[in-house]
């Protein structure tokens, strides 16, 4: 009941209703066995390399040496010439390739848990010095009325308790929920693709970043982002967007919005760590991504995402 009243904005502050506790993901034990199967199928099982050719002749040695030389060249010299892309590609492919020393981050938003406190929004603004009138993250409220209409609006940064927004009569509503939005950190990011000067690049951890010293402010990336998360920062004149608080996560801290969320609706962690909460939940419960048909392959996943959220 408290949840519904908050959605409809009747000024009930959820406060520290906390207790996200059981995420419902439960039995994650299946993950490890599945992973084992997947891994063995990827590497061809224990006896996968049964041929194991011996370097018994000079010809074979030369063949192998040239292969190694070519491989070294393609892995070292070529990536240097297109450094930002290759970093992104390797990071994006990290989850599949299973490279052990490669960090790859993931983000999960549970729309079933979000109660629209707005605490994530103000935390982000303070943490990242986001100018007024722009947003690195926001929360949408979807209200389905009994007469068949849908109302979509933005959760105020103060939360409904601190705003003067009129309350909605619960009797008129079929269902309502919140959808937090932030950078999707796409593995195939169109914003990165269209940047003409390598200012948009992918960190080794798969996070899309912007080089403030290189950006020319053409705004092509703003146009290319299907999720509307990019903007031209009026104070720096650079393209700007959510970085999942890159400056924090690389110090093993949580993004500001995740830390501020009182109900655990935002979950951040390492995809390359099968024991992280993100990995466990992605492995065990159905999740989805925004605008999947565009083929951007977001690393931001949603639980309980309704079809009308785009």
């Amino acid at each position: 009941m408290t949840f519904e009243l908050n959605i409809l904005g009747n000024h009930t502050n959820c406060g520290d209703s906390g207790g996200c506790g059981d995420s419902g993901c439960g039995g994650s034990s299946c993950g490890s066995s599945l992973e084992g199967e997947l891994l063995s199928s990827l590497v061809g099982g224990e006896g996968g390399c049964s041929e194991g050719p011996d370097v018994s002749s000079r010809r074979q040695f030369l063949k192998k040496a040239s292969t190694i030389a070519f491989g070294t060249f393609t892995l070292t010299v070529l990536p240097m010439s297109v450094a930002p892309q290759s970093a992104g590609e390797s990071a994006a492919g990290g989850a599949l390739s299973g490279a052990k020393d490669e960090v790859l981050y993931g983000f999960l938003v549970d729309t079933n848990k979000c109660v629209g406190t707005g605490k994530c929004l103000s935390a982000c603004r303070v943490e990242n010095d986001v100018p007024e009138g722009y947003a690195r993250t926001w929360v949408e409220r979807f209200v389905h009325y009994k007469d068949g209409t849908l109302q979509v609006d933005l959760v105020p940064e103060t939360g409904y308790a601190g705003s003067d927004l009129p309350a909605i009569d619960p009797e008129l509503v079929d269902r309502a929920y919140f959808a937090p939005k932030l950078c999707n950190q796409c593995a195939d990011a169109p914003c990165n693709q269209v940047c003409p000067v390598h200012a948009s690049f992918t960190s080794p951890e798969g996070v899309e970043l912007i080089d403030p010293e290189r950006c020319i402010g053409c705004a092509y990336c703003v146009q290319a982002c299907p999720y509307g998360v990019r903007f031209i920062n009026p104070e720096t004149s650079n393209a700007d967007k959510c970085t999942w608080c890159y400056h924090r996560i690389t110090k093993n801290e949580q993004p500001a919005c995740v830390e501020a969320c009182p109900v655990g609706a935002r979950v951040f962690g390492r995809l390359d760590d099968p024991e992280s909460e993100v990995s466990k939940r992605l492995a065990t419960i159905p999740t989805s991504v925004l605008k999947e048909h565009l083929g951007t392959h977001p690393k931001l996943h949603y639980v309980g995402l309704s079809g009308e959220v785009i």
Partner: protein
Amino acid sequence: MSDPSFVFPNDPHVPWSIMIVLYPYITGLVAGAFVVSALYHVFHQEVLKPVARLALVTALCFCTFATLPLLLHLHHPERAFNIMITPSATSAMSGFGIIYNFYMLLLIVEVWLVFRPEIVERANSKTGFQGRIYKLLALGNREVTATSHAADEWLIRVLAIVGIPAACVLHGYVGFLFGGVKANPWWSTALMPIIFLASAIVSGIAALIVLYLFISWRRRTPPDLACLRAMSHYLWISLVIAVSLEMLEMLHMAYESGAEWHVLSTLITEHLAVSYGLIQVLIGSLVPFLILPMAIRPSRSPRSMMWMSGFASILILVQVFAMRWNVVVGGQLFSKSFRGFVEYPVHFGGREGLFAAAVIMLLPLLGLWIASKLLPLWDADGAVS
């Protein structure tokens, strides 16, 4: 049915202004004017000889100032050269440096070769300040022989041949910049480069007709009617192709009625009702489509033909500008939430305002005027040649 009133929080800030409307408009004029000159130089359309030189110099003048709106738009213009020195291979926009510079160089060389006999002749005959300018323009080569002239003619033809695909690429890639944005259903179509190219040719021919008539009027010399008729003919054919492509794209979107059609149909019928429905389609396309065939009828009097062709050309120039506007600005008027619309506030002043846009459009004409003082765009007998 959803209430169409929600926009993402960053979407009210329309990032691409009138300057990004001007860029494809100007490059379109460049490409179109070049095509006219190529029709003479490559395809030997002798009837276009009176405007062949004018077309080439017009293309050069507009191309010279094509980057100005981009520089005014960039939030970091001081880093503009990054696009030339560290281009990203994955970005369509990074092709700009290569394509623009190649085309600009081609235009400069071709114009120089076309006017070389006159430049050399004046470098040898003129004295004083004028003489120094022509000596400078002659680049140290002060002799034109029959052999060198033949070589020049051959090179001009080669450059004109190479210039046709280059002009197509110059403008087609601008269309590709928009057509390749999958986030925007108003832009994302493979037809976009072709639509841009077709309308570029239309605008180039129309601009040349207007310039030719204006210059003839200012010089009190009658225009070559055969040339005017031929250009009007080409203009009408190009217009039919361009508008057909534009309508095909629209019809295709409407017929498919994809997921975002509800937004696009509202965009067209409400937010672009004047600039698209009234200006681009009715006034800018339909009226010239009807006027031009009447203008080029053999029984038409010269004066009447000049007025009708000129009027239709001005309308077409407005149409192409409206088309650029509707693509560039129109594509930013709806939010990526596909549930709401935003406003593009047009300012008069400022770096990206109307005044700056007007100055940018006047600068190539100023350049053309200066070029007409330096280079013989027409013969002493008055006919533009």
